[in-house]
């Protein structure tokens, strides 16, 4: 079990909280909360140790496209980068739906 934290300088303010994904092997939960801070912070709890660099790359690629300013909590149960990206995109879509 490893806890990872990341910060990104993003611009697109999030106004609602959303929750996507589930607690299941090979999957992850993504919780997004509005923030008053000027940076996007991520707290990732993962069962798969030693993947900080991979996480950094997946997140960087995602935020390059969607610079969401929010607090993220992610609970990972061994998801592949493809699944992580899909769930992040789903969270982004859910935020759009609720506007």
């Amino acid at each position, binding site marked *: *079990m*490893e806890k990872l934290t990341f910060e990104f300088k993003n611009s697109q303010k999030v106004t609602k909280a959303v929750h*996507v*994904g*589930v*607690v*299941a*092997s*090979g*999957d992850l939960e993504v919780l997004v909360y509005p923030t008053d801070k000027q940076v996007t912070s991520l707290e990732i709890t993962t*069962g*798969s*140790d*030693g*993947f900080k660099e991979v996480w950094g790359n997946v997140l960087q690629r995602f935020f390059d496209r969607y610079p969401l300013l929010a607090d993220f909590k992610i609970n990972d149960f*061994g998801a*592949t980068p*493809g*699944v992580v990206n*899909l*769930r992040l995109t*789903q969270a982004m*879509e*859910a935020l759009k739906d609720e506007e």
Partner: protein
Amino acid sequence: MVTYNVHDLVFFSDVTDLTYAGSCPDWVATAVMRAPVGVIRRGQAPAGMLPIGIRGSNKSQRFGAYLPVTAVTDHLTSQEIRHFGRSNRQDKMLPIWQALDQINPYLDTHQYDWGLSGSAAYELVTGIPTVNQNSDLDFIAFNQEQLTPPKAQHLLDWLNSFGPHADVQIMRGQAGFSLEDYCYHHGQGVLVKSLQGPYLSADPWNE
């Protein structure tokens, strides 16, 4: 002809049976020496090969490799593993085993074609201590008739009422989705893991 499904376990002889891209971490040889067994992964493999995953002694140790079908010495489906005997259970008092013993008779009485995977399956088959207080019960549901969201929720609540978190993967061909995801997110987007990769579906039962 033998059909290999995702989550089945396959036995082989030794580490030299494995083919892989890139380099092989040191722990793999140790793990294979202890138990020459791999779990069939979802993914493409070269002709005549099975995509398998090797499990190390801690949770972050997973290694993807390919195994020639001709190197398979034994094969257990996840359904067979769900019915495996109790002799390999290391700490017999763990809640996961008690939960399994209560759930199994119900599944059998009602003829659920369900299998068991994950850490519990690995320990049942190898006798290597793998499960702990926090382990999930990972079920693989084959030929499962479509459930309405309330029925799915009811089933999931019952499966989870024994303590350990129960995770049910509904199989559609070689693709699968989580019953919990369906309960919470039906109509929005349920994650389907397919041989071609993951995608979101509003109607995962009928993909």
